[in-house]
């Protein structure tokens, strides 16, 4: 197991380097710099001074090496659009709302989705099944910003149960969490239903019945466990994707999260912030997949216990 993990960590590092080069190159391939456009065009001399101060007049190679050597010391530079803090401080500040709302959305949506999927599988082709499948399909097809707006319309405007937007108090969190929850809920509902139906058709389930086990025990002890293994591996990447903040949800609900920065950093040519965001995503996804693979190998007896004995 250890050699496996170490080999994967090495490949994560290689991926990291390759991605960093690609992002850096793509970033700089967009014409223009951080100080060029804007409402107040700066005089050329000022621009030149700024460019020099931030090292933007040096060769791309030098800029890359400088930046990456900083990265290795956890120094991601200073965001051009917010020079009063470091990139790390900005990320730390902005990530909290995204993590809280997105994370809670996934943590709430996933179990709901699983329960919905179980109900649909057990009551196949009844109204429960059709309702669950409809909810799942809608959750996946309706764009999250449409869902958000509908949520605001129904619950904040018409019913006036919760505030429409903002970040400060927990009651403002409810709608964005629901919006975030729809996708994991829909994904897991569909997945759980089909995985369970698959497992229920397997021969060993008939053997379990022939042994005299109750249907409840068969479902919760055996069928769920068999269906669960692949589900576990989907969870972490989904969590990362959601917990880094959706620009749509955060814009509509006016949440000061990370989502907006993904786009704005590209638009304003905020290179340090842009690089930091991309590198952060890369590392997190790579680690998420690595952990998922380890988890899968550990949960699946075929891999954990090894091959033929007798």
């Amino acid at each position, binding site marked *: 197991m250890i050699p496996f993990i170490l080999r994967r960590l090495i490949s994560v590092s290689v991926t990291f380097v390759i991605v960093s080069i690609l992002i850096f190159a793509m970033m700089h391939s967009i014409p223009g710099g951080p100080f060029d456009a804007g409402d107040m065009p700066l005089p050329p001399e000022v621009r030149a001074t700024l460019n020099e101060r931030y090292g933007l007049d040096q060769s791309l190679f030098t800029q890359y090496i400088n930046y990456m050597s900083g990265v290795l010391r956890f120094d991601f530079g200073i965001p051009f659009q917010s020079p009063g803090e470091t990139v790390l401080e900005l990320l730390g500040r902005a990530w909290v709302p995204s993590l809280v709302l997105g994370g809670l959305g996934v943590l709430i949506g996933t179990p709901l989705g699983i329960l919905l999927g179980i109900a649909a599988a057990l009551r196949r082709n009844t109204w429960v099944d059709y309702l669950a499948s409809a909810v799942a399909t809608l959750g996946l097809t309706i764009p999250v910003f449409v869902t958000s707006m509908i949520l605001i319309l129904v619950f904040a405007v018409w019913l006036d149960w919760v505030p429409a937007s903002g970040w400060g108090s927990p009651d403002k969190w409810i709608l964005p969490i629901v919006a975030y929850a729809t996708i994991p809920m829909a994904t897991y509902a569909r997945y759980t239903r089909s995985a369970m139906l698959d497992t229920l058709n397997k021969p060993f389930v008939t053997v379990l019945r022939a042994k*005299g086990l*109750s249907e409840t025990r068969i479902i919760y002890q055996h069928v769920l466990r068999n269906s669960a293994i692949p589900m576990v591996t989907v969870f972490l990447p989904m969590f990362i994707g959601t917990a880094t903040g959706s620009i749509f949800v955060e814009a509509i609900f006016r949440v000061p999260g990370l989502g907006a920065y993904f786009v704005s950093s590209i638009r304003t040519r905020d290179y340090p912030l842009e690089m930091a965001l991309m590198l952060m995503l890369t590392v997190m996804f790579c680690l998420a997949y690595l952990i998922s693979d380890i988890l899968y190998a550990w*949960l699946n*007896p075929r891999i954990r216990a090894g091959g033929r*004995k007798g």
Partner: protein
Amino acid sequence: MSASPVTPLVDIRDLSVSFPQHDGVVQAVRGVTLHVDTGESLGIVGESGSGKSVSCMAVLRLLRSPPARIEATALSLGGVDMIAADKRQIADMRGRVAAMIFQDPMTAFDPVFTIGQQIVETIRVHRAVSKAEARSEAQALLTRVEIRNPASILDSFPHQLSGGMLQRSMIAMALSCRPQILFADEPTTALDVTVQAQILQLIKQLQAEFGMGLVMVTHDLGVVAETVDRVVVMYGGKVMEQAPVQDIFDTPAHPYTRALLASMPGQGGGRQRLTEIPGASPNPANPPTGCPFHPRCTVADTRCTAAMPPLQGNGLDRQAACWRLT
């Protein structure tokens, strides 16, 4: 044994099982009557589509109904009416009074639990014993089915074992609650010839030792010749003939039984053309009228197409359903 008539261990009378499909109804079993007495071994011989497996699954109520429709004048196991029984009674009967082993041992176990866990589970579902006790019983059972390293097998996962080991483990699991009857549905079809011989011998020995009834469902007449006391021959969802095993082989009455025996390969005398049965098995969704075998029968006449012949006996222990015998 008492002198008064004893209820058979398995009593099936006029059983019919059908499955509605989107384009018709599949009649898997059409009016089957058979029984198994305590301690007796019965072989049910038939091809795929004959209804032999479905009949056994029906007794244990292992068919999802709905969609399956099960009707019978009697369907009892150990004296209990399996049609009237509720879910709890059925679950109680399964494993404890009647156990079943299946054809493919590789897919019969839950892949994420060890063999030991699955045998222990069977024991603890029916009896109040501790995990440790159940485990040591499981180990003793594995030894009894001739597994040489039972402790290691207890902790193994199904994918780690060969077909022969898994089939023995499945037998051990089936016997863990000392059932009164064991249903074996093609238990050796997926196994090598030497393993098959060992498993059949093991089943026979265990049946004698535990005093169990045995129902051996198979398409292989050789298996029947090796293992059982009495034979029921099924075709097209119906019983064609029923007799003690020696009589079936020495003096088969029904044309289908005779044709089956004649077509068995390996009877010696070098390379030869076999006596084949022309045609194919009937389609359960659209069975022939009258006797299901008439399209392939060499001695069929007009009576055979018109109506199903009744099962007629010799008054003792033989019965056959054929117009030519009346």
